[in-house]
């Protein structure tokens, strides 16, 4: 080691931040170099002085004063905005109003030479904000393209719409609830809890203003803030504003369209994956008379055109909310989430790179070493085990990061093999075998109602195994008319394509059927394997400082 290198590392040495090898090298150097040794001693004395100085400085608390001043100043700004509207109402000519407004808001408009339409649209937003000063409660019904069994952040045109319902009670002790099919999050004024259906529970002992990625949904309930904020962003970031009118059954509506832009760079992995980081067209619908916000839609911009991603179907203001809404009916037995704990061999995990963590995780899944898997993934229940158990890691890519996320993404390819118990049941009426999904019970009445096919002879003589093989063969060819012949319910080819389309790329192996309990039914193990490519999200900003799986499974 050279002296310059040694001196640059002095702080790291004194802070105990060198790894054992570097530490040993440094100590070896200092054993031989008296000048560096003296340097270390002098630095030690200096840091001791600095420590004393620092301790002598009493801590400062400015939070309350600063936040009070900020909120006060913001209120002033909003009043100016409203004043601007009044000028308009007073009938002062456009140019003069704009001139006065410019003085009032101090260059607020200088940022953008607004078109007359954009200016009017901005006013509608400001009026909308004014028309909803402080409701006691807000209740919103919406539909969102998202994953039903994930937290509340992901959006995407590849997902189906799921219903989302939001309740917010304002006041000294606010309460809220956000719900969709797979998850429900509630803040009851004291604590914040999420139920991951059916029986996983995450709870914080404090009343959180938003948790589990519900922040942007709850922001929809704070209409005044949301509109004021949208207006500010549109003006500061020069987003395009448009204004249209529409006559609906409920009366005249004024519609403002905002072309919002993501804060993330174009090539960022998380761009367009959440409401706040997407390039989207946001459409605010206001009641022509009351000026209140009555509807809201968001469209994601895709290459192929725009896709509706969120639609607020109903907003109720000031309606009393049943207190029971702010409680969750819990299943009898629940699994409670806790922060990743320090493990006895935590150091081993702490040292892992994202790639090593991903490899360790997938290797543990391969070996079905669930104890090891649980160090990375929660919940690790039966469904997860069924899905991940027996996977084969094909390859890992180079880890990468996003500006919108504090962890890492590790690209991976895994081969997943699932053994699913399919059933085939004989329909004597239809003279053929009917394939039922895993764990689906036969409906004798339905089977008796089925009609024979015109070419019944072709299907009559199949064995149960041949029938199920023929069904999967049809799916592999995407021959939905043929596949349909093995199903009890008539469903469209489009639906089948959606549900079974992926089978075309999968390996299917049909096992030996065994007679099931129900008469005329056979239980058939079917092994389905496929290669799954995705990015594993890992983060280590927890107390144990080791990587845990945060998504991407």
């Amino acid at each position, binding site marked *: 080691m050279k002296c310059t290198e040694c001196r640059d*590392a002095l*702080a*790291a040495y004194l*802070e105990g931040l060198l790894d054992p090898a570097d530490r040993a090298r440094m100590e070896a150097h200092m054993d031989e170099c008296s000048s560096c040794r003296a340097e270390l001693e002098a630095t030690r004395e200096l840091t001791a002085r600095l*420590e004393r*100085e620092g301790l002598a400085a009493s801590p400062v608390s*400015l939070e309350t004063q*600063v936040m009070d001043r900020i909120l006060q100043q913001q209120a002033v700004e909003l009043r100016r905005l409203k004043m601007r509207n009044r000028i308009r109402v007073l009938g002062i000519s456009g140019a003069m109003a704009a001139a006065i407004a410019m003085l009032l808001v101090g260059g607020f408009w200088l940022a953008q030479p607004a078109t007359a339409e954009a200016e009017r649209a901005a006013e509608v937003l400001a009026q909308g904000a004014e028309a909803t000063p402080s409701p006691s409660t807000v209740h919103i019904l919406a539909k969102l393209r998202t994953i039903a069994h994930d937290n509340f952040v992901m959006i995407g045109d590849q997902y189906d719409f799921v219903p989302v319902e939001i309740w917010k009670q304002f006041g000294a002790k606010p309460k809220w609830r956000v719900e969709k099919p797979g998850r429900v999050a509630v803040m009851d004024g004291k604590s914040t809890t999420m139920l991951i259906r059916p029986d996983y529970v995450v709870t914080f002992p404090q009343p959180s203003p938003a948790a589990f990625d519900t922040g942007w949904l709850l922001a929809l309930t704070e209409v005044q803030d949301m509109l004021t904020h949208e207006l500010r962003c549109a003006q500061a970031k020069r987003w395009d504003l448009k204004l249209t009118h529409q006559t609906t059954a409920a009366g005249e509506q004024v519609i403002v369209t905002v072309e919002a832009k993501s804060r993330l760079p174009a090539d960022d992995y998380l761009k367009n994956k959440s409401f706040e980081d997407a390039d989207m067209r946001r459409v605010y619908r206001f009641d022509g008379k009351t000026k209140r916000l009555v509807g809201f839609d968001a469209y994601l911009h895709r290459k192929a055109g725009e896709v509706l991603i969120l639609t607020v179907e109903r907003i109720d203001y000031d309606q009393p909310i049943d207190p029971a809404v702010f409680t969750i009916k819990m299943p009898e037995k629940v699994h409670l989430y806790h922060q990743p704990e320090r493990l006895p061999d935590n150091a081993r995990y702490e040292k892992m790179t994202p790639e090593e963590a991903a490899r360790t995780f997938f290797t543990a899944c391969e070996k079905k070493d669930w104890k090891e898997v649980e160090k990375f993934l929660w919940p690790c229940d039966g469904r997860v085990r069924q899905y991940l158990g027996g996977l084969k890691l094909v390859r890992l890519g180079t880890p990468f990061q996003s500006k919108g996320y504090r962890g890492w993404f590790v690209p991976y390819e895994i081969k997943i093999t699932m053994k699913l118990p399919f059933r085939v049941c004989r329909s004597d009426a239809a003279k053929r075998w009917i394939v039922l999904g895993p764990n689906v019970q036969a409906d004798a009445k339905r089977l008796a109602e089925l009609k024979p096919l015109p070419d019944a002879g072709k299907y009559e003589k199949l064995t149960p195994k041949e029938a199920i093989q023929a069904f999967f063969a049809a799916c592999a060819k995407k021959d939905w008319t043929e596949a349909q012949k093995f199903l009890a319910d008539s469903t469209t080819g489009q639906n089948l394509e959606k549900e079974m389309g992926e089978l075309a790329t999968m390996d299917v192996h049909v096992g030996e059927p065994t007679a099931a309990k129900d008469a005329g039914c056979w239980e058939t193990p079917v092994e389905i394997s496929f290669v799954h490519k995705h990015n594993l999200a890992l983060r280590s900003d927890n107390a144990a400082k080791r990587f845990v799986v945060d998504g991407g499974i």
Partner: protein
Amino acid sequence: MPPSDAECVRSCLDGHPEAFRHLVARYQTPLTRHVRFHLGEMGEAMEAAQETFVRAYFALGNLRKPESFFSWLLGIADRVCQETRRAAMRHKSVSCDQLELAEATKPDPGARPAVTEAVTRLPDAYREVVVLRFYGGHSCADISRDLGVPLGTVTKRLSRAYVLLREQLARRGGAGSEVTP
């Protein structure tokens, strides 16, 4: 886990002023100390620190690199200090009473321990890490996050800051005078 600086900044820009509270909590002590190095008097320093935070909040839209929030904050603080000192100078010409008052609030290098005085004179990049480490009580890992620079850079800057500090203290002639309390 508290949110990162960049997350707080983004939250504020997205209309959640409450997120700024985290930033105030994180930097109030080091910022006030930093300002005090400029102004000398504690009451004045707290006033200037407050003003710095409020100005920073309303200028967040101009912050290019949200992960370097603290360095940017220090830049604003320096301007606030300049203005405060200029105001104090104007004060000075008003009356004798006020002159005395202004004198009292003027930075008085002699009143500060030599080491603190030396910290004041460090180049920005070095002063930041020293102020955060010793006056803000942040760990090196925290500082790496606060300033958005790698941990190795933080320790290297600290090492070099120590060299500069010792050189300055030696130049004052009393290198050893304050070493032993």
